[in-house]
């Protein structure tokens, strides 16, 4: 699985080919994202004296953590030709579930983590099963769970937040750091690496590409499309659960009304990162870059003192322009 060199060499000796490493780094659009990211860094560095600093970059990393982590799962969902609109609601409900478990079951970070991740995974499973077994389009299924999960999250405490008091929980998911790198950024890196391994180096990853690239051909090749698709939803739900742990550890509480509308940032990151909404194409590193580009854009505009209303307009315009420019 670490044998990256041999195909790379094979491709080098055969003109016209693209190696596995190239695919891993660039997806289907050579270096475009890197160039876009670099241009953005240069522009903001010139325009704002505060932009170019390690503190600011750690800041960007922390701010984009939630979107980046969930977007890794969304990459699998979108490559397999589906969509998941429920991730923000799943995050909210998972956070409630984790904090309530620690409040009423046992005040242990393990209990909280299991409850949070498990809730996310269950909602993902529900999305996957409804989509593949009842053959309802995932857009509609997850539109339903978007509403349902948020409603449940608001119902369990009658819209009140739940305070968390577990210090280990704070350290592991929110405030700890290793070698000066904050825990949320470490989680982002870990999830991204795991996502890369799973998508680009595992049998499952190949099947995700095939299921989205041409479901009929995949079926005729013996791929269990329903299982493959369902697993992608479970993965995304679980990562939304992980994001809820990080968010609630940072704020020492879980709130049922958090991150409304975040699914749009997640989907925008994935598409900006090179996934095709028609399935079969995309790469994890691209998704991370997409998320960082959106996060950097937010950060840079704030530093430039652009009003928050205008920020939204600029962000929307840049996303549409970037996708239009880089598509195909």
């Amino acid at each position, binding site marked *: 699985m670490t044998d990256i060199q041999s195909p790379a060499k094979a491709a080098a000796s055969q003109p016209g080919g693209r190696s596995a490493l190239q695919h891993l780094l660039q997806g289907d659009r050579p270096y475009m994202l890197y160039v876009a990211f670099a241009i953005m860094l240069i522009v903001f560095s010139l325009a704002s004296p505060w932009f170019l600093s390690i503190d600011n970059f750690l800041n960007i990393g922390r701010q984009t953590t939630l979107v980046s982590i969930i977007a890794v799962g969304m990459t699998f969902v979108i490559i397999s030709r589906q969509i998941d609109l429920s991730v923000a609601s799943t995050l909210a409900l998972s956070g409630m579930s984790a904090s309530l478990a620690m409040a009423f079951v046992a005040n242990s970070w393990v209990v909280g983590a299991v409850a949070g991740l498990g809730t996310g995974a269950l909602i993902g499973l529900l999305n996957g099963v409804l989509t593949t077994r009842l053959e309802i389009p995932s857009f509609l299924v997850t539109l339903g769970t978007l509403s349902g999960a948020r409603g449940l999250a608001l119902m369990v405490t009658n819209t009140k937040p739940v305070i968390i008091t577990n210090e280990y929980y704070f350290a592991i998911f929110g405030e700890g750091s290793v070698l000066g790198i904050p825990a949320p950024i470490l989680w982002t890196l870990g999830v991204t690496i795991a996502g890369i391994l799973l998508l680009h180096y*595992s049998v499952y990853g190949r099947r995700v590409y*095939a299921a989205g*690239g*041409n479901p*009929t*051909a995949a079926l005729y090749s013996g791929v269990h499309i329903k299982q493959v698709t369902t697993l992608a939803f479970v993965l995304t739900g679980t990562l939304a659960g992980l994001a809820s742990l990080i968010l609630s550890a940072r704020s020492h509480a879980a709130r049922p009304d958090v991150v409304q509308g975040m699914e749009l940032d997640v989907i925008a990151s994935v598409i900006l990162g090179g996934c095709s909404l028609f399935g*079969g194409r995309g790469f994890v590193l691209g998704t991370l870059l997409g998320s960082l580009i959106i996060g950097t854009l937010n950060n840079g505009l704030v530093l430039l003192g652009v009003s928050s209303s205008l920020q939204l307009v600029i962000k929307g315009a840049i996303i549409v322009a970037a996708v239009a420019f880089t598509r195909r």
Partner: protein
Amino acid sequence: MIEQGSIAPFSGTPLLRVEGVRKRFGGVNALRGVSLEIRAGEVHALLGENGAGKSTLIKILSGVHVHDGGSIEIDGKPVSFSSPAQSRDAGVAVVYQDLSLVESLSVADNLLLGREPKTRLGFLKKRQLVAQAEAFLKSQNIPLDARAMVGSLPFAYRQMTEIAKALMGDVRLLILDEPTSALTDDEEKILFEAIRAVAARGVGVIYVTHRLNEVFRISNRVTVFRDGQNAGTFFTAQTNMRQLVGAIVGPDHAVLKADGDAPGQDTASSAGSSEKPVLELKGVSNDRLDGASLELRAGEIHGLAGLIGSGRTEILQTIFGLRSVQSGEASLDGVSLKGTDPAAAIGLGIALVPEDRHVQGLVLEHSIERNLTLPRLPYFSRLGWLQRRPASEHANAAMRRLAVKAPSASTMVKNLSGGNQQKVVFGKWNEPRPRVLLLDEPTVGVDVGAREEIYGVIRAAAAAGSGVLLVSSDLSELLQLCDRISIVVDGRITRTVARPDFCSAEDLHHLIQLSQPSEEHAA
């Protein structure tokens, strides 16, 4: 039931006169000077094998292609169409097999799509739209409800809507390209009546078909093409099936050429009848099969011949687990195939090269390597992790063995030619050798050179011990490759013949046509 609508007096100018029309595509002579004459008010059937030039002529008449030589006259005036719009203006309308209707709209909406009556503000005049459509249908004697939703109509009525749509405007010549391939007998009757009504109004109808039975039921005259040339024009009432089959397959096919390397001969003898079959179907039924029974021996190439829609493809799909076995028994090496899905079938050693490689066979936007390894991913993995070296070695070896012409295994499949794409589909199943290789129209859209190479691959698979089940509409392909051929009619196998009993395409054509249930005009 044959003579409907009499032929206009011979004396007048024909509606359409095609004289010595030629057309080349690159090095291929698609038409080498064909002639055709259509009179007003007649239904004229056009017959010929795949590649005989029927569709090329139709594309010339409809303005898709321009002919290289010869002349085309409509009402005695020479014409040459450089666009479909010109052909349309000259009164030519074509109805293709694939319907181009909006299913969620009514018949009237479809007929007047794009030219709806509307008010000055752009609002739709609904009542007027329905009234216009109804008046038109009445004037054409087409029994359709203008208000009916197209999606809710049986297939024959959709086809009729399509014909009605083609007839909007001033149509002199109506061309129907295999309109009945998906129709039941009753539906066919309804459609034929509508066609006769159209012809009775003085429209000339060209009716392209593969089904000889239909020719006797609907047409006044028949023209047969073979290899881009005329092979005869007959009055339907004065000809018979044997004569038509002879014209379609031609004299060279009368006896299978004693190709020294006539395939199968040796394999046929090696696959002695005493051997136990590798695959066995006993009275298998489901939604599309009706008690199909079949024995496939190891090392045998076994053809399935029949008309499109007869259930040939469905037999393969059932064996591969894409359709369930509802009753009867299907087994591979004695292991029941009941309840298998494609993944389980692959595990048992069954491989399928499907009919439509773009839709069913390949992920076009992925590399050759990804496509080649997809069905066998577990072979190239350890604990779920892909082993890249074995996978790429496998892909390179398969490409070499099948002579796939591409820069590398990472070339995107959609950039390959049809023949090379089909070799990739074969490559998916080449190694390890499957027990049973199911092939559905394996050389459609493949050029001649690649076709020979693919034949080589098929023979090699049989020689290595795979049982090969081959569905093909190309009779000469079945003749060249098969040790035995089974005739499929309505989801059942009506006959199985072995090598000595079929030696010409004519024999085979007869077997297929004579097995049709509604056969009435056998010579």
